[in-house]
């Protein structure tokens, strides 16, 4: 069970969270303007990164807030958490324990 740093509540067990998939996929403002391929890309295409992955979590069983995190999918170590709407932080040094 992962230990996840909620930006609002602090470190909490994974059980309290819901995984929200890849982060920074904004819903198009005018979906009608997209062709089928572009729309399918928005709906379904995912980077599925092997390495540092920007992803959404929701503290579903806690403060109920969505937030973003950088996690290394080869170690499951979290490298950063940040609030929804904030830009993906640059990583000074990768790795490190979570």
């Amino acid at each position: 069970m992962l230990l996840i740093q909620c930006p609002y509540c602090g470190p909490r067990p994974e059980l309290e969270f819901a995984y929200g998939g890849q982060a920074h996929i904004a819903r198009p403002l005018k979906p009608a303007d997209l062709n089928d391929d572009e729309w399918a890309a928005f709906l379904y295409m995912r980077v599925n990164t092997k390495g540092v992955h920007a992803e959404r979590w929701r503290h579903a069983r806690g403060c109920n807030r969505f937030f973003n995190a950088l996690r290394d999918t080869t170690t499951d170590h979290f490298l950063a958490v940040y609030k929804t709407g904030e830009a993906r932080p640059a990583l000074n040094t990768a790795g490190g324990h979570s």
Partner: protein
Amino acid sequence: MQRFSAFSIIRRGLTGNESWRPQWRRASPKASYDAIIVGGGGHGLGAAYYLAKEHGLTNIAVIEKGWIGGGNTGRNTTIIRSNYLFDESAALYDHSVKLWEDLSQVLNYNVMFSPRGVMMLAHNVHDIQVLKRHVHANRCNGVDNEWLSAEQAKEFCPPLNISPDIRYPVLGAALQRRGGTARHDAVAWGYARAADALGVDIIENCEVTGFQKDAHGAIEAVQTTRGLIRTKKVGVSAAGNTSVVLGLAGVSLPLESFPLQALVSEPIKPAFPCVVMSNTIHAYISQSDKGELVIGAGTDAYTSYTQRGGLHINTHTLDAICELFPMFRRMQMLRNWGGIVDVTPDRSPIIAKTPVPGLYVNCGWGTGGFKATPGSANVFAWTIARDEPHPINAPFTIERFRDGFLIDEAAAAAVAH
């Protein structure tokens, strides 16, 4: 190829078993091949075998970054069934089950396919509706699947707890008698040995690092940790790592890779005759020929390539098993392991051409890939050889997501694989 039989065992046994030869050659990459399969799991080795056997392509290689059969092929709960809801799925999986039925004889390798029956439990009215829909659809598609009352289910699987006092009583079950299990390692080794005998090179410890394309963007070579290999056809069967490999060719797919855990108990004398699956309480269980109870857990919630998951997945899996089979509470977990499963949005696989000419992909099997091994390998080989899908895998394209022709077993049936 040294023929396997009771006779050969005795003959070679009498001479101290000295005369056995390697089951497949330890090949090194040639400069070029007619086709290359990336990924030495059951699907990849099988595709190579069928390419050689049915399509006459023998100058081909399977390249595997680790050791063959070391991925999900060697990490799954070996359940085999074809009682899927949609016609497309039923056709694909039943094609596979038919191949399973004489795979041992075809490969001259005992893969221990054991059609001991796969039973899916219904715990509420909705389950009954869903499973009966399966039973009817399967029957009309020529796939065996029958409805059992709770008592009949208990008769078929005596350890089952059908008491009305449990939290989610068993109201009935759908049974596919042709379903069952097989010996997972043997599938990889059997295909490897048979493919090798047809001239296929099986190259281990060889990881793809890139693709080389010609002026028209078509595949012309594969870069690997063991050098550049020329080829015009590449079939990728890399399961959890598919996104990574296809990414090297600039192809992105609707895939996410999740950790999937499974576990076995200590070996015991025969105590569990069939395979039982319950979607409502998330459990599936069978007993291996070695005597271990083989139990599948759910996937962890997040994408990961670590091949391990959390303790809570095990507690939730085993509380379901203990609720259904209370006599197993005193059994002990012997070994737990994790795999990486690649999941598509509709939980159905992709067996198709990619936007890159000469590049083909077989992926997205989620938690259900083992059962499909022969069938998927067989139609994937066809697709690679003829540069067009076999009728059976024609619906399983990448484009179906763009066009909305989903084959959504998960949403439609919510039955785990």
